């Protein structure tokens, strides 16, 4: 099918009003060029938008949203497009409102430890800007060199160090939002505790379905006084998981606990990110602790003890920043290294209780075998957040189908083990069908009603989060009645 088909869908909008104020270099309608917006970091689902508007200010966002409203068009907010659940994919065509040009850091208040930023600011750039003043923005998704604060807010993103510091919602103090009808609202603010409903908390993680974030007030924290990083190498994945349990049970709260399995290690060692892991290693565990020197030394002694008890075949300690980076190298390069295994990569995201890590991973291996797909695991072990990665050739529809089937079974497995279907990448398009695995119909309908209260026309990022056909003009509640018993 040509992409032109979707472009000339039902009604061609009247762009003249839009063109009267947006310069041509920030409006994209060419059918070839809009195609590059047909997916985000998850190229499993694709649909071209009819137009992309690159907004530079809140005022422009309001104008664009109002224009969409008049034209009866849905819109999809987009940050950097690194999302892994299809959140920024314009599945009903419509208009992409791209926010990467709204990238100013408006204000840094070092004394009161907060910053006010536009949504297109890149996660890393924010910490780069505040570091000279001795402060950092804590949430550190592995995509932090590219992803935007607006996208982080929408996905409630986490990262390796969120084990200790919490996820995005724990660091967002206030938001300005353009609602789907073009109204501007301000929620929260620099003060830590706000009277009334915590609307900011409600908004974080809504994946673009509540309108467009145009300003974010974030909390800043001083970097840890000291950091220690270790790498334990095992000849069994189970032992690595056991060490994770021992550490967490002991009361030590590391800043990061990351595991890579054998497939991942092999992919890493075969790539430019070669980190020097032994060939026969079945798993490596990366441990990082933050705090003051005295307590870190004490924790170090205990961590070494646990490594011995769990029969680690090797234990490495970073003595300086360079060695620390070397230990992280394999972990940071893992995703790219797996990308080289085949032409496409499907990054799954699920959560299981920490105590179940070992048995769930064994089952994941069985599922992979059954569907004949290659799964490599690299995950935030400290909070039981799994990332099984499936390498495949997306040009083969049959293989793609098997990948989707395996993915679904793995998520069902997470749920059956007492976990859930998403740790940090959101539901988006990818997992909307799986929502009933973890929520009852009533629960889903309550969420739908909430969404419709904010966005009665389903204009903002439609067909995301909720299973197909559950959101309709006549409201979630009525729809619920039609769901077969």
């Amino acid at each position, binding site marked *: 099918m040509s992409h032109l088909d979707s472009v000339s869908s039902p009604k061609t909008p009247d762009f003249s009003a839009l063109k009267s104020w947006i310069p041509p270099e920030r409006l994209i309608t060419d059918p*070839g060029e809009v*195609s590059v917006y047909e997916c985000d970091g998850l190229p499993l689902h694709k649909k071209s938008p009819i137009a992309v508007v*690159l907004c530079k200010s809140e005022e422009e966002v309001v104008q664009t949203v109002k224009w969409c409203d008049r034209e009866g068009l849905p819109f999809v907010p987009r940050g950097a*497009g690194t999302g892994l659940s299809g959140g920024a994919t314009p599945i009903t065509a419509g208009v992409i409102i791209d926010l990467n040009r709204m990238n100013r850091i408006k204000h840094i208040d070092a004394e009161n430890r907060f910053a006010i930023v536009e949504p297109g600011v890149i996660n890393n750039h924010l910490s780069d800007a505040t570091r000279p003043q001795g402060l950092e923005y804590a949430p550190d998704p592995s995509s932090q060199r*590219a992803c935007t604060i607006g996208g982080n807010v929408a996905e409630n993103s986490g990262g390796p160090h969120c084990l200790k510091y919490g996820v995005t919602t724990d660091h967002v103090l206030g938001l300005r939002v353009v609602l789907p009808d073009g109204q501007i609202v301000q929620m929260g603010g620099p003060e830590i505790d706000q009277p009334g409903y915590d609307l900011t908390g409600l908004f974080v993680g809504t994946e673009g379905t509540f309108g467009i974030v145009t300003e974010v007030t974030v909390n800043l924290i001083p970097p840890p006084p000291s950091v220690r990083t270790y790498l334990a190498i095992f000849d069994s994945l189970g032992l690595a998981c056991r060490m994770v349990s021992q550490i967490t049970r002991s009361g030590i709260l590391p800043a990061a606990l990351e595991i890579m399995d054998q497939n991942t290690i092999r992919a890493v060692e075969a790539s430019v990110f070669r980190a020097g892991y032994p060939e026969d290693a079945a798993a490596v565990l990366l441990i990082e602790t933050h705090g003051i020197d005295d307590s870190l030394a004490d924790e170090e002694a205990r961590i070494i003890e646990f490594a011995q008890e769990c029969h680690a075949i090797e234990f490495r300690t970073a003595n300086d920043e360079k060695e620390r980076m070397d230990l992280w190298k394999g972990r*940071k390069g893992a995703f790219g290294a797996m*990308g080289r295994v085949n032409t496409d*990569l499907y990054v799954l995201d699920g959560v299981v209780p920490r105590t179940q890590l070992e048995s769930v991973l064994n089952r994941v291996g069985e599922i992979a075998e059954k569907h004949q797909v290659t799964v490599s695991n690299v995950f935030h072990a400290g909070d039981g957040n799994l990332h099984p990665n499936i390498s495949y050739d997306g040009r083969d529809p049959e293989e793609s189908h098997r990948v989707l089937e395996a993915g679904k079974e793995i998520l069902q497995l997470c749920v059956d083990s007492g976990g859930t279907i998403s740790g940090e990448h959101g539901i988006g398009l990818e997992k909307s069908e799986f929502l009933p695995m973890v929520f009852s119909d009533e629960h889903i309908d309550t969420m739908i009603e909430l969404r419709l209260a904010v966005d009665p026309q389903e204009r903002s990022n439609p067909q995301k989060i909720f299973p197909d056909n559950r959101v309709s003009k006549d409201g979630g509640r009525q729809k619920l009645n039609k769901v077969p018993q």
Partner: protein
Amino acid sequence: MAIPKSEEKAFKERFEEYTQTLDCVHCGLCIPDCPTQGITGRESDSPRGRIYLMRGYAEESIPFTPESLKHLDQCIVCRNCETVCPSGIQMGEMMETFRHEMNRTLPHKGWKHHFMKLMLNHVVPSRAKIAFLLDLLYYYDRFKLRKILVGVGSKFSKKLKKMDRLFPPIPKPSERRLATSASIPQGLYPSTQGKARMKVGLFLGCITSELFVETHRSTIRMLNRSGCDVYVPDSQTCCGALHRHGGFIDEAHRLYEGNVSAFEESGVDVIIVNAAGCGAALKEPPSSLPDGLGRPVRDICEFLEEIGIPEPDQKISRKVAYDQPCHLVHGQKVPASAVLSLLEQVPGLEIVPLRNSERCCGSGGIYNLLHPEMAEPILDEKVEDILDSGADTIVTGNPGCWMQIRSGLLDKDIEVLHPVDLLDQAYGA
């Protein structure tokens, strides 16, 4: 507007090399480091978007439109994306193949491209023609024609003035010619440290062979001081980098072969290049010549750092910042430390950090002439970073970058030098 089906089909049949695009996993991590995306904010001006377009054209899932092609044309081939991509994409090679196929099926129609093609294929490969051209430019400058023409012309076109700023003063014809193997005793510039520890060959480049003759002289002196005999074969030719960027791969191969024979009998151990763009091109031979030039190719700073330089004896009181040429850091993967560790040996030199020193300045060979609307704002960012660094001297080891950065600093009190020119000043006669 779409491109006729027949041309689209011809392109697809030929663009077999598109499988390289499959290395991209669409993660987006490269986007913030792409200078063109930084200017326009468009996905199609980012590495990920460009690869997606190339793949889409080849797989017939994306319509082949002039508007989308424009963004592939806008790639500077700075290769910053190669450095940051966790999946190891090879943008340089991909762009060369893509543009090559484009030239065969859908050649550009504008006068600029015709002019470029004429220059690349008929002037640049010949040292005699380059010398003649530079003579013309010299007299044009000398007799104030340049001032008059630019003065009048810029009343009609703002671009002319900006383009003129790029051109450095042209040395006198008599000072411009470096003696080569044909005209010096034994064809050698001998080591000044007694018996040479190595015999190295010097690569001159095309326009740079005459326009940057002073840098060649500094290079030779630095090599002689460090105990090397320097051989400069007369028959060498252009490196072909500009041809490759433009997709004129066949011509680039011919030039490479010319250089292979120029160095074949030279007996040199290493070939030294002082222009980052040429160095990258020579280090990456065409697949038909897997042995390349038959001996290692080294950037001058990379090489001097490897073999060590004698202790400098002159104090230089300057505040210097290093701007990394893309084709040195991203193309040849020579880290900033190679250059900085040489400069650190110069007494009196204060080295200050330069923010984004690994980011493109917008030169891109002749990109700044073909795409001034992109190159100018990219240069503006570079100038801002330079001014913030507080440096009074910028060093950068590539003629294109030298011209581009210099043009942005003409009305500032900041000098732009090749690192070897600065190093050379650190030694008494």
